[in-house]
């Protein structure tokens, strides 16, 4: 035991002595852990725990008795029943109503006694005091802002009180920093209940140790006697025997006339083959179908136990933070592994010395593993601290982001444990191989600082391929299934696939080093170095490979998505604005046609180069023709889609043609042809209201879904005499509107589309590629730093025999370029494989007016990938070459 402690002591000393490397690794671990904690915290903050959900409904009480469709007297009945059942249980009344208030909009109005312990936590008092007396009110910050009042001011809220009300406090709901809430004095809603045109919802909060039992008994009492007291008498008593099948409660809600109507229906021919069903349908229409559905008063119970028993939306935010860190830590594991592999080689003499002094294989392994454990724990701990710090500092930001007031730290232990465990495990895994290697070196070689060149293990390639195959299998099988476990299995499969391919890096480097004889000195050194120090270089290659996966899968997915989007037409141009209709005063009516004024209003906001106000014809452009042998996403048949949602055809007026500005289109229309605004230039046929016409398709960018895809010459208008038309407007802008302009247009009350190039998928993916390239650079520089530390010793000799100091730069440049190249060779098939595996599970088609694409089809952008694969290693190499330092001419004194 003491022996291990001694070995561990050496480990801690090593960590302390190589301070730079230790700090580097600690940071490497800390960043993802910190990120994980923050992400976990944010996810937790944005989802309510069961306790918190309970608090929003119950406050500090134990049971909420919701008085549904309450009639006078129910509330009193509950109070007295509870009083009889358990005098120790207190009852607090709480009322809420959703009221539209001028200047505020929709507001939730509460009445409760804020100082009652049972309501504690339902609302939070941010400032001032609870309203207690008549004429006092507390409002949420949003309301205060809208009304421009503060604590102490006086407001007039006509719906709630005829008098002026004094704002005595600022309140908020516990987990929401926004929302319009108004709290008036206790029982404040009772007095205005009749005058409000919305119902006031009442609840009774029961608190006390017996509350939940009381709730059970109360339920029984309600069932046995309460209902008899407060439910109405049937309109026709007894129930006619013909209607025996009708639900009793529904029967209670029927008026006398309605009952007879139902009886009549049952006996008439109209009822059809299944009269019982017809009657039931009519009855439920009578009760629930009208504007104000009828209901029987009832009691609903929400107990704290029930609340706590139900999970929150995301079962455990800890899971999210763990996932977020895992991803990063896979990368960290590789870099740490490389750093340790390098460090071990540099410390070979020390390891030999320990061996010569009687350290056993286990002891040596402990010194390396112990250092990893130490770095892992310190890194994880500082990551947690930094994460918590960031979380606390960014609290206002996060509160706004998740729209909720955070109480307490805001980060739970489970958010922290996951990332920490993952960090420790991944660092230990990363260190395991170097530790094993170190402990296996014969002491005599170690003492001379010699790492024996081992032949690549025979099992590596089969195991790597096996892992990858199992990974593919797991992913495809799990994607097809829908169980909760499947998500986890997909992750495991993906990690296996990546890990399996990464394993093959080592034998590849080993066999590539055999080519060393064929290349000039610097290249030979690079090949030999990577081949000999495979623990380090293979891990470096794997680290780069993982990062390269991102851009490769991104460009592939982007190309695939672009290909699939093409079946719906070319991407929308950002400077086209299609005004479809304008709102009427009545918010529910969207269908007013576009007028010149509407166009002028838009033109006043944003510079417009061309405007076309034109008619669309409500023609059926294509039949809903079923495509044989294809299934849609939800398993149904696939139809050839319409060209757009509604108005598919427009008349090619001069204005419109000018606005579109496509000479081909203009010429065709002039020649009396039908034109399709599509994706390529070709002759085609278009079916209009059941008749086929020859047409010419041109590749034209128009606003997807809103612009008609078919243009007909005015001369053809006579063919469709009775077709309704609707005017819409196409505005071609000088540029895409700014956000402000866009918002201003929105406020005009127009239904419009376009005017934005909402980031297309491909742009998004290209941005992702850019970002991951940046990460590649960072990773490569980390890996280079690690390799450089190790090869510097050898470079010193090379410089001593006459190589110029710049040889170091050439060497490191070649080394990183080479490692990136090998990583690329692995990443390309792996990335494409990943995309393929993940899309292979989708067996439906994308069907649009311009074609069909299998969802599982993968479009590989070979030119981009080829350029990427050729350019990246070279540019990484050149970047390294230009950024690293030359070797010092006088070797630094080495600390022995």
């Amino acid at each position, binding site marked *: *035991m*003491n*022996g291990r*402690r*001694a*070995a561990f*002591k*050496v480990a801690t*000393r*090593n960590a*302390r*002595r190589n301070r730079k490397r230790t700090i580097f690794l600690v940071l490497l671990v800390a960043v993802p852990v910190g990120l994980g904690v923050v992400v976990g915290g944010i996810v937790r903050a944005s989802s309510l725990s069961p306790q918190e959900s309970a608090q929003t409904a119950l406050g500090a009480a134990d049971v909420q008795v919701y008085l549904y469709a309450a009639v006078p007297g129910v509330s009193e009945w509950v109070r007295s029943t509870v009083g009889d059942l358990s005098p120790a249980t207190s009852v607090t009344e709480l009322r809420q109503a959703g009221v539209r208030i001028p200047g505020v909009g929709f507001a939730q109005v509460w009445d409760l006694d804020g100082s009652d312990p049972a309501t504690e936590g339902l609302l939070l008092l941010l400032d001032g005091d609870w309203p207690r007396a008549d004429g006092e009110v507390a409002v949420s910050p949003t309301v205060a802002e809208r009304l421009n009042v503060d604590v102490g001011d006086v407001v007039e809220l006509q719906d709630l009180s005829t008098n002026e009300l004094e704002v005595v406090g600022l309140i908020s709901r516990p987990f929401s920093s926004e929302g319009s809430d108004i709290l008036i004095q206790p029982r404040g809603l009772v007095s205005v209940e009749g005058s409000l045109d919305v119902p006031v919802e009442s609840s009774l909060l029961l608190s006390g140790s017996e509350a939940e039992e009381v709730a059970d008994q109360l339920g029984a009492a309600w069932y046995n006697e309460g209902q008899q007291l407060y439910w109405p008498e049937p309109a026709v008593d007894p129930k006619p025997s013909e209607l025996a099948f009708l639900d009793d409660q529904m029967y209670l809600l029927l008026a006398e006339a309605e009952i007879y109507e139902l009886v009549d229906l049952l006996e008439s021919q109209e009822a059809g083959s299944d009269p019982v069903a017809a009657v039931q349908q009519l009855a439920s229409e009578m009760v629930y179908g009208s504007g104000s559905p009828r209901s029987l008063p009832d009691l609903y119970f929400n107990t704290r136990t029930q609340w706590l028993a139900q999970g929150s939306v995301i079962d455990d935010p800890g899971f999210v933070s763990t996932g977020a860190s895992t991803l990063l830590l896979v990368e960290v594991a590789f870099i740490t592994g490389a750093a340790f592999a390098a460090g071990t080689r540099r410390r070979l*003499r*020390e390891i030999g*010395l*320990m*061996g*010569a*002094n*009687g*350290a*056993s*294989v286990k*002891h040596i392994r402990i010194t390396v593993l112990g250092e990893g454990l130490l770095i892992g724990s310190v890194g994880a701990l500082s990551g947690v601290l930094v994460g918590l710090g960031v979380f606390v500092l960014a609290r206002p930001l996060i509160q706004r982001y998740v729209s909720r007031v955070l109480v307490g730290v805001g980060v739970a232990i489970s958010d922290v444990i996951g990332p920490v465990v993952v960090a420790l495990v991944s660092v230990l895994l990363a260190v395991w191989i170097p530790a094993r290697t170190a402990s296996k070196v*014969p*002491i*005599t070689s170690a*003492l001379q600082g010699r790492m024996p060149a081992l032949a690549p293990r025979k099992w590596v390639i089969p195991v790597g391929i096996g892992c990858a195959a199992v990974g593919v299998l797991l992913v495809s099988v799990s994607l097809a299934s829908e169980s909760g476990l499947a998500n986890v299995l997909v992750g495991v499969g993906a990690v296996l696939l990546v890990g399996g391919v990464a394993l093959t890096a080592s034998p590849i480097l080993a066999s590539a080093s055999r080519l060393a004889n064929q290349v000039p000195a610097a290249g030979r050194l690079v090949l030999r170095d990577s081949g000999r120090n495979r623990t380090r270089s293979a891990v470096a290659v794997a680290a780069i490979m993982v990062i390269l996966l991102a851009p490769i899968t991104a460009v592939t997915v982007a190309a695939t998505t672009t290909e699939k989007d093409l079946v719906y037409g070319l991407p929308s141009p950002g400077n086209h604005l299609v005004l479809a209709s304008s709102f009427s005063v009545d918010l529910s009516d969207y269908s007013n046609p576009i007028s010149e004024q509407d166009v002028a209003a838009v033109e006043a906001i944003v510079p417009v180069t061309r405007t076309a106000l034109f008619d669309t014809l409500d023609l059926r452009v294509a039949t809903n023709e079923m495509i044989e042998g294809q299934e849609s996403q939800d398993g149904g048949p696939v139809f050839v889609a319409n060209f757009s949602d509604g108005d598919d055809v427009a008349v090619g007026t001069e204005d419109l043609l000018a606005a579109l500005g496509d000479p081909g289109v203009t010429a065709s229309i002039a020649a009396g042809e039908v034109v399709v605004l599509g994706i390529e230039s070709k002759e085609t046929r278009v079916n209009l209201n059941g008749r086929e016409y020859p047409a010419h398709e041109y590749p034209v960018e128009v606003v997807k879904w809103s612009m008609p895809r078919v243009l007909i010459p005015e001369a053809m208008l006579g063919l469709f005499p009775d077709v309704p038309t609707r005017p819409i407007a196409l505005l071609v802008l000088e540029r895409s509107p700014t956000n402000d302009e866009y918002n201003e247009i929105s406020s005009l009350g127009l239904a419009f589309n376009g005017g934005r190039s909402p980031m297309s998928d491909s742009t998004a993916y290209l941005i992702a590629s850019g970002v991951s390239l940046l990460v590649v650079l960072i990773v490569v520089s980390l890996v280079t730093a690690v390799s450089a530390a190790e090869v510097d010793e050898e470079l010193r000799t090379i410089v001593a025999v006459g190589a110029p100091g710049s040889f170091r730069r050439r060497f490191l440049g070649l080394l990183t370029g080479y490692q990136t190249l090998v990583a690329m060779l692995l990443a390309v098939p792996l990335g494409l494989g990943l995309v393929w595996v993940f899309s292979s599970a989708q067996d439906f088609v994308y069907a649009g007016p311009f074609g069909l694409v299998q969802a599982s089809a993968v479009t590989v952008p070979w030119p981009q990938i080829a350029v990427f694969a050729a350019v990246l290693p070279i540019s990484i190499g050149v970047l390294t070459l230009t950024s690293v330092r030359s070797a010092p001419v006088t070797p630094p004194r080495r*600390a*022995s």
Partner: protein
Amino acid sequence: MTEPILSMRRLGKTHGVGAQRVDALVSVDLDLLPGELVAITGRSGSGKTTLLNMAGALDEPTTGEVIVDGQNLATLSKQELARVRRVSVGYVFQQFNLLPSLTAAENISLPLELDGMKPALARELAEKSLDEVELGGMADRYPDQLSGGEQQRVAIARGLVGPRSVLLADEPTGALDEATSESILKLIRSRCDAGAAALLVTHEPAYAAWADRVVRLRDGRVEGISVRSKTPSSTADLS
């Protein structure tokens, strides 16, 4: 006659195979008695280091056997060999003898602690050892705060700390100047006079001369042995 503390019988070692085969040692017999200092000399490549590695349980002989403290190393497991290195033999190399991250005292107590001794006790023994090599005040210095000679002294102290009684020194003075080398040899001599045993590899005759016996290796064989007169008064006509 006292039992040898280290004894090698018909020891042979072959490195490599095929064309790279090197017979580094061929049938060497050597005994080391308690209190004895034996020097091994010979040209570079004559097998000195190989012999020492064998004696120190760092390497396994191809033929023959090594017996340390009555234990035949061939019969021991890897764990037990490590233990032999912890408790029986101590090594001193030409350079890089000390773990740079441990202080002088910690370097010395390392084998003891690795063997499971309580740190406090190990520290006590280490300090005693340091006193014996006249570095009493330097217990808490790190190797880079010690001169080359002091580092070697610490290494010698470590080689003979606690139960260890056989010192294996491979060119311990190779990186030192003459005066310092002399003092290191004097130290080894005095430790042997105090009861330890040492195998000293050197190619300097003047340093080898500190030994009771000088074994000269040539191509992995013992070429000659010269013995110091047991007492300076004995008359030996060696001509």
